[in-house]
C-alpha cells in the first residue's frame, strides 16, 4: 500500500475501534452477516488483554487454544479490513454517514512479503518488535504463537544501520521509507471497544508495589503462570527466583473507592480472576503452596461462579480472609513480606508473612479512550465510562456510536463477548440495505473430476527464507521428493505462501494436471485453509492437499543439526505424500438456509430479539407459554438506575404486536422437533384450542426466562409483614402512606440462594435490596433499614448505589450461613433476630416490613421439557447451557440454537436486553447465508459393515449416532463434530472420519518406516 490519502466513498460499513476479544467478536459477527468492517487497533497485533492470560475461569481452559481460531478467522474474513498500529484522528458526520480519519503508524515492514521468519529479530532484537506489548515485568519475545498479523514491526528510530537491517530480510519485506498513512473512511456506524487499562498501584506506597518485587499485580502473576510467559510457566518469586510457599491476593485494589485514585465502582471481574489464579496455583502445587485471599465481599455472581467459589474452598483449600489489609512491608534481613491487616469482626491488628502478594487491580478507563470518546462526541459518566441510553448498555449518547467490553464498564470475558455481539447487532442495523454480492462459488472455478485418474502428486517445498532454507538444502529435498511414488513433479517454491509462489503453484497444478498437492512448509494449522483455497482456484477439490510441517517440526527445532533436520524433513514429506495419495475429493456438507426464526419466550428478551431480527427483514415466530407477552418484567416498576420498566415493556409489546414480520403465538407449547440447523421443523400447540401447527425455521432462540423464587422461609406467606423484594417494590409504590409509618425495615439476602438446594447466586437480589431501601428512604427518611447479607454483590456501578445507601444510614449487617437470622411473628409485625458479628451479640428488631431477597430459580419444568424436545444441555440447576462459557456465551452446542436472558442465568433487564441483541447478531451470522457449510470432517458409516452394536452411539461425546430404521448406525454430518472417537472404537471398522481416514493415517506410518524395512 503506498502512502497516498485514499478517499472512500462507500458508507456501507462499520468501523470497529479496538482489536481485543470484543472488537474481534463484533467484527466477526458483522462479517459473517455479510457486512463490511474496518477493524483498527493501535497495537502491532490484535488480541488485546486476553492473549496475556494463562487460563481463564471458570473452565480453567488454556486461552491460546480457545482464542487462536478466532484471530486467524478474523484475518481471513474477506469482509474485514484489518488495520493495526492505527488510531482514530478525527470523526465527522452523523449516524449512517460518518467520515473518520485514521492514522496508521509505519511498521517499516511490508505485510504482504513478511513471513515472520524471525531473521531480523534474531539479528537486531533491540529494535525489532515481534508482537510486543507485554507489561514491563514479563518480557517475552512472543506474546503468543498465533499472533495476527504474523509479522514483525520495526522501531526505526532505534535502528543504527538501516542498510544491514534491510539486507537481513530474505523476503525483502523491510521498507525503511515506510511513512505514516492518513486515511479517511466512510462508515454508517462505529463500535468502540478499545478496552480499559488496569489500575496502577505504584502510588500506593503502603502496598510496596513500586519497591517490593514480590508484590505483583494479578496480570503480572498471570504472566508468571503462563506457559508463554517470561518464566515459561515456572512460578517463582521475581526477587529471588524461588518457588513461593505462601501467596496472598488482595482484592479491590483500585475499586470500590478504597484507595486514592480508585474508581468508585466495583471492577466486577477481579474476584473470579483471583479465585482462578489461586485454584490454578493450587492445582499445580497442591500441598506445596498456601493460597490466601484477602477480601471484603466475594462477588461470584456470574453463571455457576458460586460453584467455582465453593470448589476453591472445599476442593482446593484456598483460604479466605474477610479483612482489610493495612500494609505490606519487608522487614530488614527478611526475604518474605509481612502483611498487617484487620478482620471485619474485630479491631485487632494481625500480622502474617507471605512470599508473594498479588494485587487484584481493577479496571480504569485510559486517557486514550477518554480522548477517543471526546472525538466521538460520546458523553462519559463521573467514572469516565460512557453514559449509555435507557436499558440498552451498548447505545451511547451519540447516535450511531456503540460501545462494548470493558470500555463500556468493568466486566469479564463472557459479558464482553455478549456486548460485542450486541453492538454488532445495533451497528449492523444502521447499515443501508444493499444487494448481497454474488456468492463466492460463482466466481470459483469448476472442479475437475479426478475419480479415474492415477494419483499425480506435485510437491512444493518452501525455503521460507532462512527458516527452512537456512538449515537444510531445499534442492536436495526436492530431488528426494521427486523420486517418491506417484510424485509427478517436485519444486522449490521460495516463500510458498507469498502471492507470487501461490500463483506459480496454481499454474503448475493446471499445466501438469496434478491431482494431489503436497506443500513442504509450515503448520497446516495456520496455512491449510490458504492452500485449500488455492486448490479450489486451480480447479482441484480443496481436500486434495496435504502439508508437511518441515519448518515448525524440523528446521526450527533441529536448526543445530542440519543433517537430522534434513533426514526428518524427508520423512515428513514422504509421510505427507503417502497421505495425499490416499486423499479423496470431499464435498463440504451444505444445506439451504431457511431464514425464519423461532423465538421461544415472549418476555423482554424474546421480544427484543424478535424485533431486532424482524427489523432486518426475517420472519419471526414468537411463541409465549402464557396468555400474554411481557414475562417477569411486567412485575417490575423501576430499575436501580431509575428507568421506568412498565413504559419500556409496554412500548416493546406494542412494537412487537404491530410488526408485520412477527407472528405471535400465546399459550404456546412446543411438542415436537426435527430437522437440522438451517432447516428445523418444530411442532407447536397454541391458543385456547391448543391448535397444532408445524413451523419451518432455520434458527431457534430460547428466551424462556426464569421464575422468581418463593421458598417457604422466614414466615413468607404466613405473616403480612413479610414480602419478597418484588412485592416490596410494588407495595412501596402502591402504599406510600403505609410506608411513611414504618419504623423498622429488615431485608434478608440470599434467601433460597447460595444454599445446598440452590447453590448459585441469584445475581439480582443485592441491587434489588439497595433499590428498595433507597425507594423507602425517599418516602420515609426516618425509617431504620437493616440489610442482613452474606456478601454484598453490587458489582460494577451498582457499588455506587450501595455506598449511597450506606451514607443514607442503611445498616448492613453480615450474617453467617451457619447462623442465619430467625423470624417470629409479633402481631402485625415480625421480630427478626440476628447475630451481630461486630457487636458479638444477638439482636432482635421488630420490623414493620421484612423483605426477603429470594432471587430467581430456573423454570425447571419448561427447560427440562424443551431440553428434551430440542436435545439441548442444561446446567445442574436447570438453566440452558451455552456452548462455550467464555467465547460462545449465547450459542448453544447444537448449531442453530441460541439462548438469551434469564433462561441462560439470572440477570437484570439491561443484561437481558444486551443478550437479546447479542443473540440477534449471532443469529444473523447464520441467517445471512444462503446455504450452511458444515465442512467435510464428519464421520461416515458404511452400513454394509455396521453391526449395529451401539458402541458408537455410546461413545459419541455429543450423542450424534443413532441406529436408524434400517438397523444401522447413522451419523448426521450436520451434527457430527468430527472428533473421530466413534471411528476409533467401532469394533466392525464400519466408520471413517473424512479427512482423517484410517488408510491416510496408516499410510503415514507405513511411509515413515519404508526405509527401515527396505
Amino acid at each position, binding site marked *: 500500500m503506498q502512502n497516498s490519502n485514499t478517499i472512500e466513498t462507500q458508507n456501507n460499513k462499520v468501523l470497529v475501534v479496538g482489536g481485543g476479544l470484543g472488537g474481534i467478536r463484533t467484527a466477526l459477527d458483522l462479517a459473517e452477516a455479510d457486512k463490511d468492517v474496518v477493524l483498527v487497533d493501535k497495537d502491532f497485533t490484535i488480541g488485546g488483554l486476553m492473549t496475556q492470560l494463562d487460563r481463564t475461569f471458570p473452565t480453567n481452559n488454556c486461552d491460546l487454544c480457545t482464542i487462536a481460531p478466532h484471530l486467524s478467522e478474523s484475518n481471513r474474513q474477506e469482509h474485514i479490513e484489518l488495520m493495526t498500529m492505527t488510531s482514530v484522528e478525527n470523526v465527522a458526520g452523523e449516524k449512517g454517514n460518518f467520515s473518520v480519519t485514521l492514522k496508521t503508524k509505519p511498521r517499516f515492514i511490508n505485510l504482504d512479503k513478511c513471513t515472520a521468519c524471525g531473521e531480523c529479530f534474531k539479528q537486531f532484537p533491540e529494535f525489532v518488535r515481534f508482537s510486543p506489548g507485554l507489561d514491563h515485568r514479563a518480557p517475552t519475545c512472543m506474546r503468543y504463537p498465533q499472533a495476527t498479523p504474523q509479522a514483525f514491526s520495526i522501531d526505526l528510530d532505534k535502528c543504527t544501520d538501516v542498510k544491514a537491517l534491510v539486507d537481513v530480510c530474505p523476503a525483502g519485506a523491510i521498507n525503511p521509507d515506510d511513512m505514516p498513512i492518513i486515511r479517511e473512511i466512510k462508515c454508517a456506524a462505529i463500535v468502540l471497544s478499545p478496552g480499559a487499562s488496569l489500575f496502577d498501584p505504584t502510588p500506593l506506597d503502603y502496598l510496596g508495589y513500586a519497591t517490593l518485587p514480590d508484590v505483583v499485580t494479578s496480570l503480572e502473576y498471570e504472566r508468571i503462570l503462563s506457559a508463554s510467559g517470561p518464566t515459561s510457566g515456572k512460578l517463582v518469586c521475581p526477587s529471588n527466583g524461588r518457588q513461593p510457599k505462601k501467596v496472598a491476593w488482595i482484592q479491590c485494589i483500585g475499586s470500590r473507592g478504597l484507595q486514592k485514585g480508585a474508581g468508585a465502582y466495583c471492577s466486577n471481574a477481579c474476584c473470579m480472576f483471583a479465585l482462578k489464579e489461586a485454584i490454578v496455583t493450587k492445582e499445580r502445587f497442591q500441598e506445596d503452596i498456601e493460597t490466601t485471599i484477602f477480601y471484603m465481599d466475594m462477588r461470584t455472581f456470574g453463571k455457576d461462579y458460586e460453584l467455582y467459589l465453593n470448589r476453591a474452598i472445599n476442593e482446593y483449600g484456598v483460604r479466605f480472609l474477610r479483612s482489610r489489609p493495612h500494609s505490606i512491608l519487608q522487614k530488614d534481613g527478611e526475604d518474605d513480606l509481612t502483611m498487617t491487616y484487620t478482620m471485619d469482626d474485630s479491631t485487632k491488628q494481625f500480622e502474617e508473612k507471605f512470599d508473594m502478594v498479588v494485587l487484584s487491580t481493577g479496571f480504569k478507563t485510559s486517557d486514550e479512550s477518554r480522548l477517543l470518546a471526546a472525538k466521538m462526541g460520546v458523553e462519559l459518566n463521573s467514572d469516565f465510562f460512557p453514559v449509555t441510553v435507557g436499558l440498552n448498555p451498548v447505545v451511547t449518547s451519540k447516535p450511531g456510536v456503540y460501545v462494548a467490553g470493558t470500555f463500556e464498564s468493568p466486566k469479564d470475558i463472557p459479558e464482553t463477548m455478549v456486548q460485542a455481539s450486541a453492538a454488532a447487532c445495533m451497528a449492523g442495523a444502521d447499515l443501508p440495505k444493499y444487494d448481497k454480492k454474488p456468492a463466492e462459488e460463482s466466481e470459483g472455478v469448476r472442479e475437475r473430476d479426478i475419480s479415474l485418474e492415477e494419483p499425480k502428486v506435485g510437491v512444493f517445498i518452501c525455503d521460507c527464507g532462512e527458516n527452512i532454507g537456512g538449515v537444510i538444502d531445499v534442492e536436495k529435498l526436492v530431488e528426494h521428493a521427486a523420486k517418491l511414488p506417484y510424485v509427478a513433479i517436485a519444486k522449490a517454491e521460495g516463500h510458498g505462501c507469498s502471492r507470487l509462489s501461490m500463483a506459480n503453484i496454481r499454474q503448475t497444478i493446471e499445466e501438469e494436471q496434478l491431482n494431489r498437492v503436497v506443500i513442504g512448509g509450515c503448520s497446516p494449522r495456520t496455512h491449510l485453509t490458504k492452500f485449500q483455497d488455492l486448490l479450489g482456484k486451480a480447479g482441484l477439490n480443496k481436500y486434495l492437499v496435504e502439508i508437511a510441517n518441515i519448518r515448525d517440526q524440523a528446521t526450527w527445532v533441529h536448526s543445530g543439526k542440519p543433517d537430522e533436520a534434513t533426514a526428518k524433513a524427508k520423512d515428513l514429506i514422504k509421510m505427507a505424500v503417502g497421505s495425499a495419495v490416499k486423499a479423496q475429493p470431499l464435498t463440504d456438507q451444505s444445506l439451504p438456509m431457511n431464514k425464519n426464526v423461532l423465538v421461544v419466550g415472549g418476555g423482554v428478551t424474546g421480544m427484543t430479539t424478535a424485533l431486532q431480527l424482524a427489523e432486518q427483514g426475517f420472519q419471526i415466530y414468537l411463541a409465549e407459554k402464557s396468555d400474554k407477552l411481557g414475562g417477569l418484567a411486567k412485575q417490575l416498576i423501576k430499575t436501580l438506575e431509575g428507568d421506568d420498566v412498565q413504559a419500556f415493556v409496554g412500548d416493546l409489546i406494542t412494537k412487537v404486536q404491530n410488526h408485520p414480520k412477527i407472528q405471535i403465538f400465546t399459550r404456546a407449547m412446543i411438542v415436537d422437533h426435527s430437522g437440522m440447523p438451517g432447516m428445523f421443523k418444530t411442532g407447536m400447540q397454541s391458543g385456547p384450542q391448543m391448535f397444532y401447527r408445524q413451523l419451518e425455521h432455520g434458527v431457534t432462540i430460547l428466551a424462556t426466562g426464569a421464575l422468581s423464587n418463593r421458598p417457604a422461609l422466614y414466615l413468607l406467606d404466613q405473616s403480612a409483614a413479610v414480602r419478597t423484594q418484588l412485592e416490596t417494590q410494588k407495595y412501596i409504590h402502591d402504599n406510600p402512606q403505609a410506608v411513611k409509618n414504618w419504623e423498622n425495615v429488615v431485608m434478608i439476602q440470599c434467601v433460597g440462594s447460595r444454599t445446598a438446594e440452590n447453590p448459585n447466586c441469584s445475581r439480582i437480589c443485592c441491587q434489588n435490596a439497595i433499590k428498595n431501601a433507597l425507594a423507602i428512604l425517599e418516602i420515609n427518611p426516618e425509617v431504620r433499614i437493616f440489610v442482613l447479607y452474606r456478601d454484598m454483590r453490587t458489582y460494577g456501578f451498582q457499588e455506587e448505589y450501595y455506598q449511597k445507601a450506606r451514607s443514607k444510614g442503611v445498616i448492613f449487617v453480615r450474617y453467617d450461613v451457619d447462623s442465619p437470622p430467625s423470624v417470629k411473628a409479633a402481631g402485625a409485625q415480625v421480630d427478626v433476630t440476628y447475630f451481630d458479628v461486630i457487636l458479638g451479640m444477638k439482636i432482635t428488631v421488630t420490623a414493620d416490613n421484612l423483605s426477603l431477597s429470594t432471587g430467581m430459580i430456573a423454570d425447571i419444568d419448561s427447560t427440562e421439557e424443551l431440553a428434551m424436545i430440542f436435545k439441548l444441555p442444561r446446567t445442574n440447576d436447570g438453566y440452558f447451557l451455552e456452548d462455550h462459557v467464555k467465547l460462545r456465551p449465547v450459542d448453544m452446542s447444537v448449531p442453530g440454537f441460541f439462548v438469551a436472558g434469564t433462561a441462560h442465568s439470572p440477570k437484570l433487564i439491561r443484561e437481558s436486553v444486551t443478550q437479546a441483541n447479542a443473540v440477534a447478531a449471532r443469529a444473523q451470522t447464520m441467517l445471512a447465508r444462503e446455504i450452511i457449510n458444515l465442512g467435510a470432517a464428519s464421520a461416515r458409516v458404511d452400513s454394509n*459393515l455396521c*453391526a449395529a*452394536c*451401539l*458402541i458408537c452411539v*455410546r*461413545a459419541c461425546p455429543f450423542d450424534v449416532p443413532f441406529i436408524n430404521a434400517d438397523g444401522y448406525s447413522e451419523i448426521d454430518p450436520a451434527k457430527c463434530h468430527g472428533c473421530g472417537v466413534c471411528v476409533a472404537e*467401532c*469394533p*466392525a*471398522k*464400519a466408520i471413517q472420519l473424512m479427512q482423517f481416514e484410517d488408510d491416510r493415517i496408516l499410510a503415514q506410518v507405513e511411509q515413515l518406516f519404508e526405509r527401515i524395512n527396505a
Partner: protein
Amino acid sequence: MITAERKPLEELIEYIKPFKRILLLGCNECVTVCAAGGRKEVGLLASGLQMAMLKNGSNIEIRQHTLERQCDPEYVEELVPMIDSADAVMSMACGCGVQQVAMRFKDKPVFPAVNTTFMGASERQGVWAERCQGCGNCLLGLTGGICPIARCAKQLMNGPCGGSTGGKCEISNDVDCAWQLIWDRLKALGLQDRYLDIIPAKDWRSGGGSGPRKIIREDLAE
C-alpha cells in the same frame, strides 16, 4: 448375545507355530458386538501375532477376513477362494463359528482365537454379564423375569441359600444374589405368594442333559 474373550497370545502362538500362512477370521455378529472378534480385533490380533512370531524368528503371512455370520454355511462359502492359500485357519468367532468353518474345510486345521464365555447382556459400554444358560425350559415367568439358573451360583430354584447377605451372593460381593433380585421384583409386582409354590426338580433333558440339542421347524426345514 454370545460373549467371548480373546485367548492369551501364547496359546494362539502355540497353535499356529507350525504354519506359515494363516487365514484369520472374524465374525460380524455377537463377537463384534462384544468387541472380541470383529474386524477391529482381527486387525489387532493379526498385528500382534505377526510381531510375536517375528520375535520367535518366523515371518508368517496373515490374511484377514471377517464374515457376516460365521455360523451360517452360506457365509462360510465366501472363504472358498482364499482357503487354499492358507495352511491353517484361526477364527475369532464363537465356538459355533469355529466349528462351522472346520466342518466345511475338512483338510484345514482350524483354531479358536477366543474363549466363548456365556450368553449375556451388556450392562454398559464395555461390560457384559451372564443372563442365560439356554436351559431350554424358561423359568423366568415364575421368577419375576430374573433367571436363577444363570444368575444364582448354586442354581437354586426355590429361594436364596444361607449365604445371601446385603443383596450379594456369598461367592463374591460383585455378584448380586439372584434371589434377592427375584424377591424384590416379585414384591414390586405384588406377586410375593408366587414364591411359595415349590418349583419341582428340573427336567434337564431340555438343557442338554440328554445330549446335543437341535431345533427343527418342519415348515422351514428342507
